[in-house]
């Protein structure tokens, strides 16, 4: 659905330091502005060069990229781009290749580009295990994330896209999303481990001996089951809580997000019956492996491997396939399904109803939208994807522990949605991938870089940056909320709402608001 740009509210007065600064800057002649910018960037690059050579080059390259982008297209822009690729071609060939791909994509004319871009992105992601070892070393962040980190990122992006349905579309602030993650993980653990040794039930599981006790269902079914059970659980939580609005809902979901890990922690003696439901703080481990089973495995000659954990001796394109790669590709497939569903929902009767509820509940109800039911669907859809992601990640780690489901995970996923841009799937993917990367590798690499390159005279800091993770995310979110509340890649609609507010003063009878369902 295309819609015209939301008009900029004519900034009537230039109040505040930022606006004055901006106005002063705009009053300068263009040549001066360019000269000052280029000068500052060069100075920055030189300064950084002395801290760390590669960082200096990096700043210069980003600056060059920006100015080349602003050159008049035909002779100059192409020449600039070719020059940039040529400069990097010998010292960092992977960077040159990356630039070439990006430039090529952006030369595709617009209506086609929005189709080409996702295809290229997916291809690059799928091929990642093949070129990851050859990738150049980034300034500050160091080597590119390994494949296991890639799986982690994909799983969290999937959860962020799920949460985006709840928070971004329907505007229901959910601070307990970790509960869904946990439900999915435990569902997978119950049905694919030795947790219930009194029952022996096998159904398509791979990599286990035929008489192994416990329930062993194929993971493919469990991914679905994890989603469905979690969605059901979401409905159970949603029915009493979704009558609340705004902050109240946030508090209650926060409560549920706390309750669930506690249940997981204490249910090695479930409700005092002596029944071991979750194995308590020790968690459930190991879980069965994923795989397509020997029939499909043999039939496809191992292209669809029988068991992810015993797959690997094939070498393609100079890369020996690892089981982690298989999980990585599976995660990509799951994320694609999530994104697909998310898009389809956004532009449907239900998606419109969600946005309507977000903008004005009273008007939405007056237009025939059943509030409870519609919100519950949003909650259930969000929960479904959280559950699938949780189940998949538990299988990948082959374990699930109550300690994995702390409140900070909920906030972490919410941060991804906010940072990326509430309501915009691309934004959420980018924000989620970035934060997940920071959490898994980025912060540690940054710390290592700081310790290696920054010193004050003879004093060398010895920072353990990941220790400060929560504080760093907090600062990131503060900065985003203060300066760009719509996130990195905003949805237009959401941006307008956040800057100008929505019309949602409640009009309901308190005694009556609960009567619908």
């Amino acid at each position, binding site marked *: 659905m295309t819609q015209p740009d939301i008009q900029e509210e004519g900034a009537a007065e230039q109040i505040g330091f930022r606006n004055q600064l901006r106005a002063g800057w705009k009053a300068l002649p263009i040549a001066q502005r360019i000269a000052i910018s280029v000068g500052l960037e060069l100075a920055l690059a030189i300064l950084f060069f002395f801290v760390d050579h590669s960082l200096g080059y990096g700043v210069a390259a980003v600056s060059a990229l920006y100015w080349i982008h602003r050159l008049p297209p035909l002779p100059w822009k192409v020449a600039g781009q070719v020059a940039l690729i040529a400069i990097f071609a010998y010292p960092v060939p992977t960077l040159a290749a990356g630039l070439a791909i990006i430039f090529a994509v952006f030369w595709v004319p617009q209506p086609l580009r929005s189709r080409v871009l996702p295809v290229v992105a997916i291809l690059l992601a799928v091929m990642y295990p093949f070129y990851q070892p050859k990738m150049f070393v980034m300034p500050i962040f160091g080597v590119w994330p390994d494949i296991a980190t890639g799986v982690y990122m994909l799983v969290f992006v999937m959860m962020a896209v799920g949460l985006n349905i709840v928070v971004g579309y329907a505007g229901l602030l959910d601070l307990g999303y970790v509960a869904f993650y946990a439900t999915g993980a435990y569902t997978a653990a119950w049905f694919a481990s030795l947790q219930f040794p009194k029952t022996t039930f096998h159904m398509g599981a791979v990599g286990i001996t035929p008489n192994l006790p416990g329930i062993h269902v194929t993971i493919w079914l469990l991914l679905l089951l994890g989603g469905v059970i979690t969605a059901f659980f979401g409905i159970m939580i949603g029915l009493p809580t979704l009558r609340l609005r705004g902050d109240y809902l946030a508090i209650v979901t926060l409560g549920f997000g706390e309750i669930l890990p506690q249940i997981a922690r204490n249910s090695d003696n479930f409700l005092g019956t002596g029944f071991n439901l979750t194995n308590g703080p020790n968690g459930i481990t190991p879980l069965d492996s994923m795989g397509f089973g020997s029939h499909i495995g043999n039939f496809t000659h191992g292209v669809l491997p029988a068991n992810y954990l015993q797959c690997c001796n094939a070498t393609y394109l100079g890369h020996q396939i690892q089981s982690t790669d298989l999980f990585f590709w599976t995660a990509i497939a799951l994320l694609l399904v999530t994104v697909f569903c998310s898009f*389809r929902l956004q532009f449907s009767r239900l998606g419109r109803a969600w946005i309507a509820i977000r903008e004005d509940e009273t008007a939405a109800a007056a237009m025939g939208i059943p509030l409870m039911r519609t919100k519950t669907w949003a909650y259930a859809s969000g929960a479904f994807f959280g559950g699938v992601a949780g189940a998949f990640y538990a299988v990948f780690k082959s374990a699930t522990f109550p300690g994995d489901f702390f409140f900070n995970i909920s906030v972490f996923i919410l941060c991804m949605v906010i940072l990326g841009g509430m309501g915009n799937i691309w934004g959420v993917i980018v924000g989620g991938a970035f934060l997940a990367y920071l959490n898994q590798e980025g912060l540690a690499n940054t710390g290592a870089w700081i310790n290696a390159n920054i010193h004050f005279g003879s004093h060398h800091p010895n920072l353990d940056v990941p220790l400060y993770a929560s504080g760093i995310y907090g600062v990131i979110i503060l900065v985003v909320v203060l300066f760009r509340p719509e996130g990195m890649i905003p949805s237009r609609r959401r941006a307008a709402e956040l800057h100008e507010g929505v019309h949602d003063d409640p009009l309901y009878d308190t005694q009556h608001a609960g009567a619908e369902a």
Partner: protein
Amino acid sequence: MTETTENGNYVLVAEDLRKEFGGLVAVNNVSFDVPRGKVISLIGPNGAGKTTFFNMLTGVYKPTAGRIVFLGTDVTGKPPHAITALGIGRTFQNIRLFQNMTALENVMVGMHARMKANLFNSILRTPFVNREEKASRARAMELLEFTGLARKAQEVSRNLPYGDQRRLEVARALGTEPQLLLLDEPTAGMNPQESAEFTAFVSRLRDEEKLTVLMIEHDMRVVMGVSDRVSVLDYGEKIAEGTPKEVQKHERVIEAYLGKAAVEDMKNRGLS
């Protein structure tokens, strides 16, 4: 259209409707009926309980006592969406459009209750969903055409001029396919020419679309111009009812609007 056995000629019947907020009686045992195919106006001074009355009819408030029957169905205390689904469409006194949606999307949200696509077939985008989406888009365009907003279908509603926003509210309410349309001060903030246009528009709703309209209105030119019947509320009570002419002359109405002194004054001058 379902003719009811009870009150074939009445779309809506409210009996002894009462609403208390704590000790305050906002609407005091008002009985009210809306005949089919007519334009009924509800007038009264500020704070007379008109909007409260509306909010009870549309399910936003639950009546303290009394009964509302719409097309033979008891809708007392039903939630707003259910009442809308049964066929009561409404607009709001202070415009409550979905401000960041386009005009077309606003009307399509209004059609929610008349559409059937659900979560699952929306994801699969079955032929049924495709057809339904197409049909409702076409119907929404028709309604925008009817309200004179067709050229602004893709505009974000917050950017529309005030008069257009009012009309879009009506278009959105028409999207719910109402049998009875409730308009809450539809001409508030309009200039005389816009009001006159709107009066003509309401007559078209009645005459061309065969809609029944119940509106709260302050602009007497609009009220007198289009109403088939006028009911007057004051302090939560119905003090008069009749044709515009009758109501205009009704002593208690003049008293409610202008005070007792004015009535005495008029009597003295032999005007009443």
